[in-house]
């Protein structure tokens, strides 16, 4: 009734090609932006931001990054944790070496450094595919963590190998360090997420995204119709690395404040982000958000319900949490192998026909 193309007349090519062609979608999108930018910052407290919103925003960026590589270009990567570590350590080195430059520049530069590293580790993808590539990226994961543990230059020769984020400000408002207001951290990450999502969405709609998808669907066919696999794969690794690096930098600088390669960026992080995009939906920007929300918010929710409301022992609750989250993942994959994004698509199709399905 209210969700359909009919009656929404497009009179220019620009209108025809917009991101959200359906009027309702467009207004919903503006509404979400309005709530996120104009309402949430005024009502959040420390707990909401630090336990739920910040991890959600940051992992969304990482999931978008991995989704470009794995979901759109079909290159399986198990090195996300290592690439996030590159972002984090790059950010730390920039922050301590050039304290006078804005943290925004540092985060973007960290993304650039990670993109370069990611391209380097992406080179083998031209020769090896599928599971074999997954193993090559797994090597990147272990190599990078080992490197950051091993070479003291990366952690400025501190005794324990930990890196600490000093206080940095944007427009005289602290965004990193201990004296940061919850809303400032939230806004800082939200701005980055918004820009990343906009860039990713538009990249995947254009030529470059189509070449990625062509490579994903059948690389030989893509080559025959004139897609350059070198360019497509390397650009996917680069763009993916850029986003993952930003996520790593934000995770370290804004969210954790102190980090260590093995502990914060281990193999579990790689799997976490991979699960996010599998559950959320491969090849979908919305899926990246949905997957991140599912895996960040659900454990916190379960913990609060089981321990906070029911008063169960913490260890029992923690074990149950594994069982419930694991069970839900299996259930989702059986019922909807294409992830939460597919549920969303189906819901939209149904809405189009409602209230008169055939």
């Amino acid at each position, binding site marked *: 009734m209210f969700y359909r193309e009919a009656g929404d007349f497009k009179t220019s090519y620009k209108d025809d090609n917009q991101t959200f062609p359906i009027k309702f979608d467009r207004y919903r999108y503006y509404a979400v932006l309005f709530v996120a930018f104009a309402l949430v910052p005024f009502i959040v407290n*420390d*707990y*909401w931001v*630090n*336990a*739920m919103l910040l*991890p959600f925003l940051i992992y969304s960026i990482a999931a978008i990054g991995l989704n470009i590589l794995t979901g759109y270009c079909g290159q399986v990567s198990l090195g996300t944790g290592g690439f996030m570590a590159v972002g984090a350590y790059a950010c730390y080195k920039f922050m*301590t070496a050039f304290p006078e430059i804005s943290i925004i520049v540092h985060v973007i530069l960290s993304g650039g450094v990670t993109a370069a590293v990611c391209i380097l580790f992406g080179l083998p993808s031209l020769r090896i595919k599928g599971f074999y590539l997954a193993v090559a990226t797994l090597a990147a994961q272990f190599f990078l963590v080992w490197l950051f*543990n091993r070479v003291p230059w990366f952690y*400025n020769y*501190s*005794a*324990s*190998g*930990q890196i*600490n984020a*000093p*206080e940095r400000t944007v427009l005289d408002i602290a965004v990193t*360090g*201990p*004296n940061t207001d919850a809303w400032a951290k939230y806004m800082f990450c939200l701005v980055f997420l918004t820009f990343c999502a906009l860039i990713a969405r538009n990249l995947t709609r254009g030529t470059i995204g189509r070449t990625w998808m062509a490579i994903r669907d059948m690389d030989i066919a893509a080559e025959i119709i004139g897609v350059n696999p070198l360019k497509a794969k390397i650009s996917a690794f680069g763009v993916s690395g850029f986003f993952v690096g930003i996520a790593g930098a934000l995770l370290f600088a804004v*969210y*954790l*404040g*102190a*980090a*260590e390669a*093995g*502990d*914060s960026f*281990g193999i579990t992080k790689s799997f976490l982000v991979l699960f996010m995009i599998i559950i959320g939906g491969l090849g979908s920007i919305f899926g990246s958000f949905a997957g991140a*929300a599912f895996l960040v*918010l659900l454990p*916190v*929710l379960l*913990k*609060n*319900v089981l*321990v*906070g*409301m029911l008063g169960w*022992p*913490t*260890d029992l*609750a*923690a*074990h149950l949490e594994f069982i419930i989250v694991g069970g839900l993942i299996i259930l989702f994959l059986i019922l909807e192998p294409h992830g939460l994004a597919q549920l969303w698509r189906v819901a939209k199709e149904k809405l189009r026909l409602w209230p008169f399905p055939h």
Partner: protein
Amino acid sequence: MKMKLASLALGATVAAAPAMADLVFPSLSYRTGPFAAGGIPFADGYADYFTLLNERDGGIGGEIAQVPECETAYNTEKGVECYEATKDSGALIYQPLSTGITYQLIPKVTADNIPMHTMGYGRTSAKNGKVFSHVFNYPANYWDGASAGVNHFLEQSGGSLDGKKITLLHFNGAYGREPIPTLEALAEKHGFEFNAIPIDYPGQEQKSQWLQIRRERPDYILFWGWGVMNQVAIQEAANIRFNMENFMGIWWSGSENDVKPAGMGADGYKSVQFHNVGSDFPVFDDIQKYVVDAGKAAGAGDQVGTVLYNRGVYAAFLAAEAAKQAQEANGTSAIDSGMMRDAMESLTITAETMEAAGLPNFGPEFSVSCMNHGGDGMAAIAQWDAEAQAWTLISEFAPSDASVIDPLINADSAAYASENNISEGCS
């Protein structure tokens, strides 16, 4: 999504329900994950001691002590979540029992004016109270432990370590890397050869490390492990018939859980301790009577008297003493975290205080000052007797080599201060 957030909000408010009248000692525990074997007894001891105070004495100075628990699984991100969830409930002190989480919380607790006590772990240079105003690591820290171990080896080899080889087998994380600078400095001083062999998380597989040890044949091994990696290392040492007399763990690698799986093979294994071992103290009779027999014990209630349970009790005892002294100093029973911090900075533990709490000679006597947040660094050596299935202290509590440690602490804390623009306090 909205539903989810609404129920989350509900859950969050319930979890953080403020209990204004009570004294709150949040316990960031880990009863799951690869380090649960160490986390469970400590959390039990910590909770049971406060339960004892509530049941026997009616709380601390008439105020009931609450110990809300939050599961971190030794994971730094969960640790941050736990801290945020509990800090607004009037938390007086944090003891995260994880060096990684400690590093995260050091700037946060300082900004929130809540003291943190990292007993025998955390950032060693936090001993310098001029830089780390809200972090305390009395009565001993890692560098004291490393020095105590080397001193013991020195004694063992007849007063000289010249030309000997000491290997540090350590967890490849913040915790395990802490002692390296000290050991490097000590190697220079005593003329022994030092090398470090890292074990990656979680350390269930150590074949390559022990192959390296067999190849290099060190005279002594110092061991910085935690959780499952302790049992594996001790078993591996037994397998290659390494002389257990020359194999020593830090206090986190010296509990019953670590040595029992290796059976007789672990006989003679040593560990550094900063408090006494065994259950031969009056307080344990009271815990049995008021807590365990009353069915109020935390966890399964089967850990009483083990090394790590004792450490939990000791941590709770030191926190409760600081709370008492804060109540006396401020003339009110309802203290806040700022008063707690001030009391911790002037805390004095004498033989009488320990005796009064039913813990005679349990730990060293020490006093804390603004300049020195770490006590005197007294440590003793314990040895495992596999026949009797018991740890016994084989040395007196002795001070560490301050001439080596103090300059290192000053250098590391100065680096932290300049990185974070902290001006020194305690004028």
